[in-house]
Every structure is written in structure tokens, then in C-alpha cells.
């Protein structure tokens, strides 16, 4: 089944890319933006049909490789 993981920067970590995107949006006329934070999205197809096991597996991947827990948080989303 497919499981997705969204990796975002923690609140206190500076996100210069997000800032630049925010300023660009502002310049384009999207003036109602409070903040932009850029993150990463992974779609992982695992050989596992049990949703709980599949999620646990992807969570382990997040902890060990996909996210750096010093600066990033992860969220797991079951997609299929």
C-alpha cells in the first residue's frame, strides 16, 4: 500500500526559501499570506497490506533517514 510522509521544518528553524517564496507571492499581489514554510513530500509504496504496519514502517524510515529530527517534523498520511 501507499503511505505518504510530509516533512516540515520545525517552528524555530529559519526557512530562507519559504521567506523568499512569501516575498515573491507578495510581489505578485498575493498580499494575504502570513507565512510560507517549505517542506518535502514522500509517497512510498510499501510491500505491506496492514495499514498500521505500513505506517509504522514509514515512521521508522522518517526517524532514520527521511527527516532530520533536529530541525524537522514528520507527519504520516495513509493514501491507499
Amino acid at each position, binding site marked *: 500500500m501507499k503511505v505518504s510522509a510530509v516533512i516540515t521544518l520545525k517552528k524555530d*528553524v*529559519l526557512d*530562507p*526559501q519559504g521567506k523568499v517564496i512569501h516575498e515573491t507571492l507578495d510581489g505578485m499581489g498575493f498580499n494575504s499570506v502570513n507565512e510560507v514554510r517549505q517542506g518535502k513530500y514522500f509517497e512510498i509504496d510499501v510491500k505491506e497490506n496492514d495499514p498500521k504496519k505500513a505506517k509504522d514502517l514509514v515512521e521508522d524510515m522518517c526517524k532514520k*533517514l*527521511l527527516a*532530520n529530527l*533536529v*530541525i524537522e517534523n514528520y507527519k504520516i498520511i495513509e493514501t491507499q
Partner: protein
Amino acid sequence: MKSSVITFPGSNCDRDMDVALTKFGFKNKMVWHNDQELPKSDLIVLPGGFSYGDYLRCGSMASKSKIMHSVINYAKSGGLVMGICNGFQILVESGLVPGVLLRNKYLQFICKNVYVKVENKENTFFKNLDKKVLEFHIAHNEGNYFCTSDQLKEIEDNNQIAIYYCDQNGNTNDQINPNGSIKNIAGIFNKEKNVLGMMPHPERMIDESLSGEDGSIFFKNLLNNIK
């Protein structure tokens, strides 16, 4: 004295490091990332470059490569490990030194000479060094050192900050901070001070006519300290 330089796919300062180490008297071996065992070495160097194309996060893929199991064991048993630039990023990703390296504050790749202040000389890397300020070279996109406030306190309490970005006279302040690193940190140690990670490249400063010789001073001193 024997040294080993690890080559990862995408390393590009590995041969420069080999030239530098050999020039100052190390018997150096190049080691491929897919090897499992390290040759007998007094010093292991993780060189600069763009291992795995900086995919995911700089150094993250390389930190999981086969040879890194041996490097981590070697470091944990007290062996000397030095990571330069991408090597520093690999060290933080492998957990051998604390913190992370974020994208430079102003989103620019920085390639220039910088001055660094050597803070802590009670370690094999900088012991007996007769200069406090060295001129090294930096070339990186992700050199913005970051750690949590708890980690910073621990790093400071244990004297783990190795070098700071500074001006020619050794003053550290925001104006001369090239990349936004917390406290102008350019390099740090692990708790035991046998692992050093730093963004500047000493191996690019080993020729009087090309670059200046503060790298030569560093390597000569390092060799003497290991002997």
C-alpha cells in the same frame, strides 16, 4: 603516520586532501564508500564535495553508506576523524557531532577565503598551534550551522566549539558571519574531541604561491600531534 580518505560518489575534494596529507608526511590511502573495512589508520578524513548530489539533505545518504559503520566504530573507539565541508555534513547526519548544517542564510553559494579563530587547543587537532587566527577557504551552499538551544548549551559547556568565523584580528561578529551559523560556528568537535567537523577547507591553503599557507601550518601541526 597513516591516514585514509573516504571517497563517496560525488566527493570532489578527496584527491586534494590526498595531495595535502601526502605533502606533509602522511601515508595516505583512498577508501571507497562501498568498502566495509578501514585500512589501519591514525586519521580518517571525510572530504568535501557533493556526495550523492546533495539529495534529500547534504550528507544524509553518505552517512548511511557501508564504510560509515566502520568510521562510526573507529570514532567511538577514540580514533581521529576529520570531516571537511560535505564531510562535516556527513558527520552531523551520522550523529558523530551534534547539530545540522542548513542552507546559507542568504541562499547564495559562498566561495571565498575566510578567517577562523581557533577556540579550543586542548585536542589533537589544534594542540601546539602557534596561531590563533587562520585563513582558510570556504565553498558551500549549506554551511549554516544550527542546533537546538539545549544542544548549544551542551556544546558550550563541553568546549566543543572548534573554530569561529572571524575577521583578520580574531573578532567574531554578525558582519563577518558568512552563512548565518549560530554564534559564527565554523567547526565543532564531538564530546571527546577526537572527531572534528568544519566547513573551511585547510587542504586548499597549502601552497605559498597559490593560496597561502595556513593549511600547511594546520597539517604540519596535526602530524606532529599524532606522532
